[in-house]
């Protein structure tokens, strides 16, 4: 014979326990009251992408070479790149326009994964609300560019790995360059230099989609 309402009384016991324990046990009151205290963001957290630069000047130290790999890999196609040109109309390996529409971006990190120059990384800032939902959420190159120190600040582990990788790559490139120079010197001893150097063909950019608001 069971008491009528036993299950209800048990349930009420649970809620009473939760009520009282919420006054002295932290795990029973996990609320973080946002504007005053902010939840600690762990270093692996990702939000929208940003561009990295080395050194002090954002434009000069820009790692991005406008290869448009990220633009092509972006599933919602929120990246928009136009290559820079010098006075002669020759393409330079850096973007003149690099826009990310954060109202479209879905923070999937695919752009980071495809980037061969370690130039684009995920930010972890989350207070991005804006009064203008069209221009305000469309981040341009200047807004996207952030120094390497910032990257070290938000994702220390990842940034260290990236730096190591880049250093290794640079060392490798240096070694290769040295080897090439050595070979060139050796070759120069044997043969006269070739008269004409072939310029690499510049790839024509496909027509860009309209960037209307």
């Amino acid at each position, binding site marked *: *014979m069971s008491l*009528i309402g036993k299950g209800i009384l048990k349930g009420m016991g649970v*809620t009473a326990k*939760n*009520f009282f324990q*919420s006054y002295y046990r932290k795990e029973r*009151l*996990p*609320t973080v009251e946002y504007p005053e205290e902010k939840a600690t963001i762990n270093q692996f957290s990702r939000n929208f992408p940003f561009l990295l630069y080395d050194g002090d000047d954002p434009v000069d130290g820009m790692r991005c070479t406008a290869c448009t790999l990220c633009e092509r890999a972006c599933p919602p196609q929120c990246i928009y790149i136009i290559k820079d040109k010098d006075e002669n109309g020759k393409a330079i390996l850096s973007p003149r326009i690099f826009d990310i529409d954060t109202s479209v971006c879905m923070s999937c990190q695919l752009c980071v994964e495809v980037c061969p120059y370690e130039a684009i990384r995920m930010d972890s800032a989350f207070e991005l609300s804006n009064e203008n939902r069209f221009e305000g959420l469309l981040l341009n190159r200047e807004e996207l560019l952030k120094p390497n120190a910032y990257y070290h600040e938000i994702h220390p582990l990842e940034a260290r790995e990236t730096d190591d990788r880049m250093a290794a790559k640079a060392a490798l490139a240096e070694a290769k360059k040295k080897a090439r120079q050595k070979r060139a010197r050796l070759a120069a001893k044997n043969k006269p230099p070739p008269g004409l150097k072939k310029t690499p063909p510049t790839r024509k950019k496909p027509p860009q989609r309209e960037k209307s608001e």
Partner: protein
Amino acid sequence: MNNYFDLKLVELGRWIEAFFAHYPTLKLVVHLLLCTLPLALSFMGAFAFTTWLERKGLARIQNRPGPNRVGLFGLLQPIADGIKMLLKEDIVPERSDKLFHFLAPIMLMIPAMIGVGFLPLGDGLHALPLDSAIIFFFAISSLNTIAVFMAGWSSRNKYSLLGGMRAVAQMISYEIPLVLSAVAVIMMAGSLNAQEVVASQQISSWVGSGNILQEFFGRILGWNVFKPWGFAGFIFFFIAALAEANRSPFDLPEADSEIIAGHLTEYSGFKYAILFMGEYISAFAIAGIGVTLFLGGWNGPVFAGLPWFVLKLFSLFAVMIWIRGTLPRLRVDQLMGYAWKFLFPLAILNIFLAGFYHFLERQWGTAIAMLAGWLFGFGALQLAAIALSRLNQSPTIRSKRVYQLVE
């Protein structure tokens, strides 16, 4: 000595009235105002406080901090809400019955406020000291139903109509166990006068004897809830009161997960606030009559009177909030079945038990009656309850389910 607070209040009232001693008409008006205005204001204040209490209590039950932005501990939150409600647009559906849509909140407030007037808040603090106050209270509280029907029907919204239908069905069904459980008390007190019912809940031979211990317990042990029939009656009364006040788990008329907000769906702004306040105040009124009938009214040791009444009222409300934070809602047919097939027979049985107890008390004294009541009377109620619940349940529910775990 004990009723110091109440006596002072009564004295204050007399002192104010004395200013108008030479103008009989004015004095009458002032007297009426003194009877009603403090009552209305204090219950509105209590409503504001209770919304805060409810939100805070529910939040703590749910492991949240609750409102804590406006004022200390969020105590000013109800005021902020009130201002917001006042400033909001009052939206009336185009095809609604405009007159009734307008009148419904008022119709809900009036009986709630009158009902509060029948409560004996303390020694001499009684706005409407009628001889048949308790039956009047139940009569007035049945008017809530009409207001809810008006709100539900006039909105011309299907959810509102469903809510209104549910409310009417539920309120008239639960009125019966509510009144029947009160009948036992009225029978034992031998009066429909609320003050007399309160007075019957002290052990009068102990109270006023001068012995501190006797004084102390004489004001507690006489409460009806400590008697077997009173305890059972209190449980039935409390359940029926929850249903009557549309509180969880009987909040079907405004079941948000089923019919949006029932009869409140099409209300906004100030009218919504008034409806909301009306519901809370009628819940107060029912809790207050529960305190009067079963929890000894304003009786209590040390500082008898208004403070005890307020304390008991808020304790009852705290239990209501606790229940609201725990239980899911019943279904509409189960709700009606529960009232008619379970509460109603038990409440009638309880009336017989009360008579039986009364007879025993007369014949052999309180001790024997208590013993017999708790042992046999309460046992009989338990048996009846179990039998009824067995009868009403379908056999598949009765057995505890076992689940196979297979590879």
